[in-house]
């Protein structure tokens, strides 16, 4: 009967081992795994290979006298030109220009017969409205007087340009050559009014680390703020000498008249919040030097860089968000150091008397004549002059580039808002591409991070945000392909917001690193006392099974 008991013992040991392996191990595995919601990894990997197509609609309108009658009959209604660029192994660009040709209507002819280009521009705008992202080029005959001498292209306030037909048009040449010569001019116009390859590669700097970029390109990229959903702008008046000067500045009216139109026009790009303050007894950290030749105090360009830090400590900020802050300071020098001029490296005074610091803001020095005998002197600050300096600084900070136009181009004045439509289009092209590039790198690096570190918990809300960011990105890329710039900008902004929210979610920080010795220290006291008897009994059974054939043999003998 000992044999039956041993048999029961063996069955018990086997049953326990079976339960431990079949039930215990999966239960332990399931209860100790981290919750990771499903992420659309396949779509994210697709986005890592970014293939962007930017489509621009171009309309070329021929006015009377630019084409002969037979050319007019043979002209093709449309033409598509594509340019492919490979930026690096994961990023490809394709620019698609869809050109439509037509002749001018009678009303447009009347508009083009005005005396100056600016008036022609205004009359043309009253006739039609072109959608965001498109360009309309009016070709005027060489003999037309609407363009001044020596100017081949006039770029207007909205999205139109006036192009003077070249000499080749006069001679009876084939239509193909006429169009070809026109094509070179159109390319130049598009580089100015739409985007150039350099702008787009600069916007992709988040994905593509620039290897050897020119100094100017580097300076441009460092000057403007990176694309952000909002910006905070602060105007400050610094009065170091309140006993001598009693300053009045009507900043609210100035902002609503001059700055607000620009910011309202840029509403598709970002939100802006503006505030203003006055600081008393705020001095510059640098002592200006007296220059007898100018009979004034001067601040040289080299010492300007040390001006900002002591002032910044006093500025304070009421910003409750994490948006970048632009500061514009108006400094009225104290009576002992008046007048104060800023000189450049060649010791010439700067007419604007202002300077700016990239990604920070601008400072302007406003000289007053405290010629009254009664102190303090009432001073009413000429806000138009002040805003005339702050406005171009603001444009620079926000990325509206004013690069020198190519020879033969004349850029028209930018109108009431301080920003021409085509400048806004340019900004929207580069910002959309920048947003798409940043959002794709954020999403792909988040996916990579979550893959690498297996211990991070991925909650449902993060998975949702990632999925919606991926969806917005795909929509934005689609709209860029079609050429709907406004929608593309909007989707790219949503994509950025969602991807940043997913990447910076506070819950993604739980314990990342478990060294192996700590894992052993936790599991050994729990599992070892249980496993040792099971293992020993299994081993005992195995050795008995091996001995039994031996015994059986002995018995047989």
């Amino acid at each position, binding site marked *: 009967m000992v044999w039956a008991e041993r048999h029961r013992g063996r069955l018990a040991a086997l049953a326990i081992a079976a339960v431990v392996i079949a039930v215990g191990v999966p239960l332990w595995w399931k209860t100790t795994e981290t919750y990771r919601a499903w992420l659309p990894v396949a779509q994210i990997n697709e986005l890592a290979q970014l293939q962007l197509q930017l489509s621009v609609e171009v309309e070329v309108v021929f006015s009377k006298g630019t084409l002969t009658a037979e050319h007019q009959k043979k002209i093709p209604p449309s033409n598509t030109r594509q340019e492919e660029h490979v930026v690096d192994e994961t990023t490809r660009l394709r620019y698609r220009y869809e050109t439509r040709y037509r002749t001018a209507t009678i009303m447009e002819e009347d508009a083009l017969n005005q005396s100056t280009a600016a008036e022609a521009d205004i009359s043309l705008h009253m006739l039609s409205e072109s959608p965001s992202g498109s360009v309309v080029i009016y070709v005027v005959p060489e003999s037309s007087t609407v363009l001044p001498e020596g100017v081949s292209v006039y770029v207007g306030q909205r999205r139109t340009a006036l192009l003077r037909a070249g000499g080749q048009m006069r001679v009876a040449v084939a239509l193909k050559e006429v169009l070809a010569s026109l094509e070179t001019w159109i390319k130049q116009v598009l580089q100015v009014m739409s985007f150039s390859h350099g702008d787009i590669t600069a916007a992709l700097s988040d994905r593509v680390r620039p290897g050897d970029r020119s*100094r*100017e390109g*580097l*300076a441009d990229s*460092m*000057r403007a703020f990176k694309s952000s959903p909002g910006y905070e702008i602060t105007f400050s008046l610094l009065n170091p000498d309140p006993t001598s000067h009693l300053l009045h500045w*009507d900043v*609210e*009216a*100035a902002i*609503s*008249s*001059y700055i607000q139109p620009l910011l309202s026009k840029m509403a598709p790009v970002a939100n802006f919040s503006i505030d203003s303050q006055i600081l008393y007894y705020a001095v510059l950290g640098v002592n200006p030097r007296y220059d007898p030749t100018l009979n004034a105090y001067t601040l040289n360009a080299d010492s*300007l*860089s*040390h001006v*900002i*830090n002591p002032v*910044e*400590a006093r500025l304070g*900020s009421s*910003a*409750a968000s*994490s948006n*970048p802050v632009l500061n514009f300071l108006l400094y009225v020098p104290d009576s002992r150091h008046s007048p104060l001029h*800023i000189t*450049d*490296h060649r010791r010439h005074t*700067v007419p*604007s008397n*202002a*300077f*700016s*610091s*990239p*990604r*920070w803001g*601008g400072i*302007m020095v406003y000289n007053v004549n405290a010629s009254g005998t009664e102190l303090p002197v009432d001073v009413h600050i000429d806000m*138009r002059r002040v805003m*005339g300096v702050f*406005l*171009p600084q603001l444009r620079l900070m926000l990325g509206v580039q004013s690069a020198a136009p190519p020879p033969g181009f004349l850029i028209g004045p*930018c109108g*009431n808002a301080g920003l021409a439509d085509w400048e806004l289009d340019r900004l929207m092209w580069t910002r959309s591409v920048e947003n798409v590039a940043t959002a794709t790198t*954020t999403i792909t*690096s988040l996916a*990579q*991070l979550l893959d690498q*570190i297996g211990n991070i918990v991925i909650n449902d809300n993060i998975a949702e945000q990632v999925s919606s960011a991926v969806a917005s990105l795909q929509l934005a890329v689609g709209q860029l392909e079609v050429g709907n710039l406004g929608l593309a900008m909007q989707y790219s902004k949503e994509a950025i917001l969602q991807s940043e929210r997913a*990447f*910076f*979610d*506070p819950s*993604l*920080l739980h314990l*990342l*690193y478990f*060294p192996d010795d700590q894992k052993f220290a936790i599991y050994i006291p729990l599992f070892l*006392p249980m496993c040792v008897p099971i293992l020993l009994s299994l081993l005992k059974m195995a050795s008995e099974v091996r001995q039994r054939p031996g015994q059986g043999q002995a018995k047989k003998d």
Partner: protein
Amino acid sequence: MAKAGQFFSSGHTNNWAVLVCTSRFWFNYRHVANTLSVYRSVKRLGIPDSHIVLMLADDMACNHRNPKPATVFSHKNMELNVYGDDVEVDYRGYEVTVENFLRVLTGRLPPSTPRSKRLLSDDRSNILIYLTGHGGNGFLKFQDSEEISNVELADAFEQMWTKRRYNELLFIIDTCQGASMYERFYSPNIMALASSQVGEDSLSHQPDLAIGVHLMDRYTFYLLEFLEDIHPSSTTNMKDLFKVCPKSQCVSTPGHRTDLFLRDPGSVLITDFFGSVRKVEITTDTINLTAPMVHLEDTRPVRELRTEIQTYMDQLPVAEIIHQKPKQKDWHPPDGFILGLWTLILLVFFKTYGIKHLKHIF
């Protein structure tokens, strides 16, 4: 634009500093003094408070054992008070934890965190990170109860790099066996300095008999002497920083690591990290504004006075405030669970095999 090259040679437009002291208790006075001295130098060289995240794990200035309250001295004979009256501590006391430190670095803070507690750097920021406290081989102790390992720190820097949260990073650590903390870095553009190698201890500098504790650590003391000679426009470079505190003065051997840094250390200025020299450009374009200003007085609507009676929000009943119910916590097995399990196993053993085996145990 010819001057653009001269101005923009270093590639950064703003500077940030994260200064952390990780030890608490009165006898670790020197760690707080270390951090505050670096804070003073960095402010003097131009980095504003809004760009400095200062984390002090304990309050030495207002500690009961401080014979001179509201002061923290860094030189003996109480020459230099580094606490002053314009110090801005962002994380204090128990807020200095490994989790908060990593959250500041990676940016994963809850949305309610104020601006002063955030590291709002961008891809053109140079960041200085200074850590001091008690450390060991591969870890740094926080608050006497937790530690951060070099792997976690390296991963945090990698997350900063993937999100382009820095242009260049200078990492200085003054603890025992400090060199082990930068061994695991693998992200580009990081330069690291430590006060001692693996297996060596960093020693403190000098005690002050009136206060009764050591005031500074050696490495930071000589680092500060070096920084006193730097002013915002000086051109001293990093190679001089590596020579600070040789073995004769420091007893430990300071170490540094520059293989991840792209530029040559000889061309990196001290003020690239410790100061904040702004790039400036003269404004040449102006716009001639011709439209007259619209004055707002007439367009603003007249605000009516509110005449409703103010009422308070619903107050909590007193009973609920005084006798609060305990919060619901997750269920954990009772603490003696494993001990009880072993007792059970032993009892079963003795029951089965008889009580006579007990004498072998006791």
